[in-house]
């Protein structure tokens, strides 16, 4: 198996909710996409899975900033995760995967690793 990155279209701007997250399903599993219209860039994407519980809930957390760093607070036990790096502010040894995200027309695309079967030698 090898992995390569592809820009997967996951939703449109109509699906976004200002200052909130939404969850999408990708080749790499569940991802939370956040839209913070008062920041530049305004789009962030991190794993939807809360690493402390394994539950898929991060898109439902409250967003904001702490010392200028854009964050989401887990709705379960309230740890904060940087939306840029995915690092947990309360415990730097824990991080969630973060994904590059871009706006393509009205579509939101994420850079996700895609597993492909290794090419078979001829």
């Amino acid at each position, binding site marked *: 198996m090898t992995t390569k990155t592809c820009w997967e279209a*996951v*939703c449109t701007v109509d*699906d976004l*909710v*200002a*200052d*909130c997250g*939404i*969850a*999408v*399903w990708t080749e790499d599993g*569940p991802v939370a996409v956040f839209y*913070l219209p*008062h*920041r530049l860039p305004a789009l962030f994407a991190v794993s939807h*899975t809360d*690493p*402390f*519980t*394994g*539950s*898929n*809930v991060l898109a*439902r*957390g*409250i*967003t*904001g*900033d*702490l*010392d*200028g760093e*854009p*964050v989401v*607070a887990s*709705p*379960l036990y*309230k740890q*904060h995760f940087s939306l840029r790096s995915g690092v947990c502010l309360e415990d730097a*040894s*824990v991080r969630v995967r973060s994904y590059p995200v871009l706006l393509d027309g009205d579509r939101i695309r994420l850079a996700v690793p895609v597993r492909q079967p290794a090419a078979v030698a001829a």
Partner: protein
Amino acid sequence: MSKQTLIVIGNGMVGHHFLEQFTRTPAAERFEILVFGEEKQLAYDRVHLSEYFAGSSHAELAMATADWYADNHIELRLNEPVTAVDRDNHIVTTPKGAYQYDELVLATGSYPFVPPIDGKDDANCFVYRTLADLDAIRASAAEARTGVVVGGGLLGLEAANALRSLGLQAHVVEFAPRLMPVQLDGDGGDLLRQKIEALGVQVHTEKATTAIVPGDAARLRMKFADDSHLDTDLIVFSAGIRPQDTLARACGLEVGERGGIVIDNRCTTSDPHIHAIGECALWNQRIFGLVAPGYTMARTLAAALNSDPQGAFSGADMSTKLKLLGVDVGSIGDAHGQTPGARNIRFHDEQAGHYRRMVVSQDGKTLLGAILVGDNSHYDTLLQYALNGITLPPNPEILILPEHQGGAPGLGADALPETASICSCHNVTKGDICGAIDAGCTDLGGVKAETKASTGCGGCAALLKKVVDSELEKRGVAVSTDLCEHFPYTRQELFHLVRVNGIRTFRGLLRQYGKGQGCDICKPTVGSILASCWNEHILATEHVPLQDTNDTFMANMQKNGTYSIVPRIPGGEITPDKLIVLGEVAKQYNLYTKITGGQRVDLFGATLSELPEIWEQLIAAGFETGHAYGKSLRTVKSCVGSTWCRYGVQDSVAMAIYLENRYKGLRAPHKIKMAVSGCTRECAEAQSKDIGVIATDKGWNLYVCGNGGMRPRHADLFATDLTDDQLIRAIDRVLMLYVRTADRLQRTSVWMENLEGGLDYLKQVVLEDSLGIGEELEQHMADLVGSYQCEWKTAVEDPEKRKRFREFVNAPSLKDPVQQWTSERGQRRPELEVASL
């Protein structure tokens, strides 16, 4: 080793306090403890005796419960007076038996002094000491119009207040030329008299009663030495106390010339195995007629029985701060300036009705004593100067001048030495408070729980807060009252800013008064404030990002990311048809079903996308959202009440349903729980709720600010025998004031404890409308009640709002694959493995 026996004679406040202290010490292990009480009731709070007439029961005044005694293995024999002590054989005798002791504690207290006047034994003459006395006074007052208290001291004025609260025209007859002759001087006494007379209590000074005979205009006539007379229906003697030393005399213990069991610095009498504490004890020729010194003796004795050399009794401060009939009175130390060379500084404002006198040492450096009438706000500072011998400022008069005349604000907490006593009821020093903070307490509530400071008479609440704040600040536990890094304001301040400026969105508030983008602290707080002020739908576009997930999706998130659903079942009353619908819905969606403590049904395990479908069915069946997810009214629990129960005196179910429907949806700083009981048996457990209502045969008693949970607290009796309208008005005002002024996530109990003035202040604002905001609070509540909407009904009807309930926006039919289920006791439950990190 067989245990020794410790017998305590007397189950009053001091006797009980001794047991509380002693049972915590190692020596308690060595003793079987046996307690005899003469009265029928377990030890109760005599200091607040007059509240018995205001509706408090023995249970509310009680110092502890029978369970406490059982838990501590103390055998309590009430209604069993001790009749003799045999010191040679170490035996005490009661009408029911004889008991051997190894150590004996006399906590027999005192009895009221009744002057030897002809006619003093008439059936309508009383003393004011026990609940039995009060019951007798109440019975006599039922047919009476006037009542006289003989004695114008501290207790006499309390008694006068009690007579007044029974609806009698009250008179006070005092032998001395002024009221409270021990604590006050002439000017102070005169001012107190004016204020009390303005309240309708007639004061007669310099009156020596010579006889009590049948009266003309009333049952009795009091004849005075100056040939005048006064007719009255009943008489209460409150002319001082005498130590109850009868047993001690009879068994030959050393007693004082004018009574009192002689004790040494360890509270031991002339017999090394017999000890005495409280008002029956005579130390250094002095009797201490206040509860705080009695408590100090109790602690001293507990230490002495542990052979702890610390803490010999060394006298006690007799300073007092009181509110008598609503009038502030304070007296500190050498109030009369009897110390040689003492000098006085006086401030007397006849206009405002304030009198303050400082007694300072000859060199002007230390405060020896003080008298305050009309305003006790200077008391704490003056007491600290006097108790700790802190050097007075060069112009000491500033301590009693009004602030606008150059008076100084209170003594900073920093200036107090470690040994300064902050709470005299529980003997808590500033050092103890610092210790509690160093041990990890980070707020006022924590310090109170740890040290018990300010949990006695509560007089030190303001000072305690100052000390705690100042010490926290010193340790860098920033007592910043800022909500968070985005708003340099408290919740209360933000509430005012929102309301006064008509701000309707988080962004608007952030732009004007904050910085950054907000966080999970300020967003829900502001969301709650906006809801309390304007009551717009919480899923209106601007408000969505402010809500915790539970509010956003109007359900309670569980550990696996699914939600629980709790429809409102007002008062816990539900028709069989609706109950069947709940069952059918639960079955259809395979929801784990459990009955909650709040008399409703919780359905667990719904996924995000199932929520709107489930609610469509529930709404169609007539259910509304239960707000189990919100910082808002949860349930109003009720018992079945007078409609079915043979004991019920009011329709508690109807009242509970009315209250639940009135306050449902009210957004508050924290959750609110209520209950209504149909009689005093209290089956709905109303006294453990924020708002508790208990039916009486005349109406409703209202209890406020209780809670269960981590730090359970019984609700306080707030008002009695209210009509339906009075009840609703009081609840409206209490809740609205709470919503407006509490801190974020502050339950009503902590809110009330942190209000300066506490329960009394809350009563003044709500029942007497002392701030003149009663109508405004009611109007605000009426607006909120009028604009209620079922959030779920609005949400399922709005396609835009329903969009939010897609689990994965790009795969609407996909179920979250993380959720693994197993079955237990016939129902589904999550099987959740924590993902490896």
